[in-house]
């Protein structure tokens, strides 16, 4: 069972720009990403939208595969800035690890 945190989008404002809700999950970011990894970064952005913080923490190491190359941000049709959302998630996870 996945626990959802409705306030997670608010929490993420501390770590990155508030753009996750602009994403309509088209998958352009995943198609263009040089990692060619099944659902990265789209799935992580979906988790932010629905507040699935636990899922993000469970899969946290995956975030560091991101090369921060910016191609996803360059091509996002919604200007949702996926690259910065991933960077914000890294910051959130680092803060979480240090607290725990």
């Amino acid at each position, binding site marked *: 069972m996945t626990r959802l945190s409705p306030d997670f989008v608010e929490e993420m404002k501390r770590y990155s720009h508030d753009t996750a809700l602009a994403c309509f999950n088209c998958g352009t970011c995943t198609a263009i990403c040089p*990692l060619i990894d099944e659902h990265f970064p789209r799935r992580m952005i979906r988790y932010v939208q629905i507040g699935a913080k636990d899922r993000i923490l469970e899969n946290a*190491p995956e975030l560091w595969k991101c*090369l921060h190359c*910016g191609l996803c941000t*360059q091509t996002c049709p919604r200007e949702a800035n996926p690259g910065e959302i991933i960077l914000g998630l890294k910051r959130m996870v680092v803060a979480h690890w240090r607290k725990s």
Partner: protein
Amino acid sequence: MYHPRDIIEAIAANLRTTRNPFGIPHFMVNRWWRKSGLTTGGDALLFTGLMYQFIPYIETSTAYLAKYEDSPLNAYLRYARYVPGYFSGLGLATITPGREKRKFDRILQDIVKLLKASGVDFGYRPELDRYSGILLYDLGDQEGFVRHARWLADRLRKAGVKKLITVDPHTTYALKELFPEYTGARFEVHPYFELLRLKGGNGRRTVALHDPCFYGRYLGLSDVPARALADLGIDCAPLDRSGAYTHCCGGPAESISPSLAVEVGRRRLDQLEATGAPIVAMCPICLGNLRKLGADVQDLSSVLAETLQ
């Protein structure tokens, strides 16, 4: 793949205690300038940010990381943060071959030659030339990055620095975009190729110029190095993935997953090799990662400096 937490905490601890992400003492890592005859004056300060100097050490350490990636031994990396920074740094400096260090020092010496030939009024102060902290920013240690960036910005401000000449895209991005946002310090920042005023050359030839993500996409500067090459009779072969749509070299993954860095780098190298032209890079991370794949890659500064001879 290594656990990101182990890598981040080791780098953060080194940077906090030694101001160097690998713990290498400053006088050992920054030696390229000793015979350059540079003065401390001038209108602008040359600021390398130590990225080119770091590459030989990165190559040594990632060779070990590649060896133990996904082996049971990689769990021991979690203890790296407890090893005193200078202790591990001295060890790394000792096992890194001198010829590799000299290779990267020559790139900086070529940049000096190019700036002098262009009549740029600049100086160098090795004690001020420190690492920008950009790796911690990319890894998501925002607290560590901001703390280090404020320390560096403060040193530069107190020294009266206003104008900086940079040599790599990561330091350029940090000083131009991140320092104003996170430290409030605003410097006039120019990558060295923006200041070159060289004409001529010795006959036309073509190269495959690899745009790094930070120049091509984040800073939108791809046209400038291409123009500097064209002014010296060197054309850039057309590439499908260049400028704002350039393809990553894979290098940024090398600490967390050396195998991923190879996989992504191989894809980029195929695109560059398809042009049939000699490959040129202008970022130390790209240069290091593409060379690691066996490619014969020259730095932009070396290609430009060859035309001066």
